């Protein structure tokens, strides 16, 4: 395949950055999107240029590292697919493809296509955990979990923390990510002790980090590679209101 890429190049956080065009020839339609970028980088290195920096790790859709806005859509055109699992056969020969980083106030660009997503870590640190007695084996049947709850918690637990929901949101809100964590932990009996402090802590950190408010636009769930449903945000709001009414708000 022959492709024209327009890639966001930015030397560092202070640089203003610009789209730069590259021509690629002979790309296999069976290559993944990231493999195509590997080929581009080989070429740039051979030409003595600085290769394009982009995040990736597992390349099998489970770690949440890959993070490219492709033709204006986080993770590209294929539904429920991370960038690393997207293949070039989804594009046309001769196509012009725009590649940009996640763009959000809370995710500053570090270099080229790499953004700093440590704000997510700080949100998790402010409540995205449970306390568990370790050291001995828990009795498997001592804490019954209703099947529908287990299923819904599992669905929410599929969130890989990639941040595509934030990149897709016109407000730069991380409500879907937050909702996924609140639902995942808050539906399980093990998550009850911290339930109310968790939602207050995580949402407050979310706001402090510069993520925007949710206006129910719904772009997030469309971009989400794991199909996290919008109703997790309903649960987030419910728990937050209840915690605030109960005087948990700091």
């Amino acid at each position, binding site marked *: 395949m022959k492709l024209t890429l327009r890639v966001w190049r930015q030397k*560092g956080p202070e640089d203003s950055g610009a789209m730069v065009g590259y021509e690629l020839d002979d790309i296999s339609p069976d290559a993944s999107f990231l493999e195509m970028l*590997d080929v581009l980088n080989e070429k740039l290195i051979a030409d*003595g240029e600085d290769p394009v920096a982009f995040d990736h790790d597992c390349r099998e859709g489970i770690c949440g590292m890959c993070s490219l806005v492709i033709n204006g859509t986080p993770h590209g055109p294929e539904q429920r697919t991370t960038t690393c699992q997207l293949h070039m056969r989804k594009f046309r020969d001769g196509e012009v493809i725009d590649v940009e980083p996640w763009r959000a106030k809370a995710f500053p660009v570090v*270099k080229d296509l790499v953004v700093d997503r440590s704000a997510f870590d700080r949100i998790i640190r402010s409540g995205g955990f449970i306390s568990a007695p370790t050291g001995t084996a828990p009795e498997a049947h001592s804490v019954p979990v209703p099947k529908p709850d287990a299923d819904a918690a599992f669905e929410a637990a599929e969130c890989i923390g990639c941040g595509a929901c934030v990149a897709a949101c016109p407000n730069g809100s991380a409500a879907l990510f937050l909702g996924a964590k609140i639902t995942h932990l808050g539906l399980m009996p093990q998550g009850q002790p911290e339930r109310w402090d968790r939602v207050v802590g995580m949402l407050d950190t979310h706001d402090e980090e510069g993520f925007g408010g949710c206006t129910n636009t719904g772009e997030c769930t469309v971009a989400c590679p794991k199909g996290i449903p919008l109703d997790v945000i309903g649960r987030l709001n419910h728990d937050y209101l209840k915690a605030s009414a109960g005087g948990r708000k700091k």
Partner: protein
Amino acid sequence: MYERITGEDPYKVPMRIYPAVHYTMGGLWVDYDLQSNVPGLFVIGEANFSDHGANRLGASALMQGLADGYFVLPNTIGDYIARTDLAPVQDASVAEAEERVRSQIDRFLSIDGDRSVDSFHRELGHIMWEYCGMERTEEGLRKALELIPALRAEFWTRVKVTGKGEELNQQLEKAGRVADFFELAELMVIDALHRTESCGGHFRAESQDEDGEAKRDDANFAYAAAWEWAGEGEQPVLHKEALEFEYVHPTQRSYK
């Protein structure tokens, strides 16, 4: 998922199944407390060798992460911290280590060769796949022991690492890893060469039964091999940790 990756619908086209390199088996040596031979350095989860070695079955990582985190570490790390005076480390070895890393970075950036880091990574992977993959022979392993040092020598003269040390530099990061991979690859080959039996994921073509199944040699190899680093360019030292089986004994694998 299959269709997403291959572009073929498995309801219509037979699935193509192919072995993939997924893990190195084994890991860093630890004691029963999961502490390495460096005091205070605990090696946790899949990075240590304790629960997987010749075989590494699916979900080993999950199982080991949970078992280590749930049962072992809550007792052993706490115990270590409680008994140890954690004074600030002021040792000449810290400065030495830092200096070593710095000079390695400078060395990478100054070579300015004509081959990318990735091209070396790929070639090394190819050597391992050919000679230390699913089927290993003495001849192939010996060949790998010639190819790896030769490629390493080439790496240190021809690699091209772009950019600087004072910025996010993924090429530099990768170069450091590939330099380590040479060491690990060589060790894997040395280990595979010394173990002349077949067992688990290690199939020595010389050691098979009439049906082509892996032939064990428990009289000589019922131990985990712990290799001690003896310094750059030195032959690692073998320590044998005996495997003792009280109730269930290893037997020849048979699918009949």
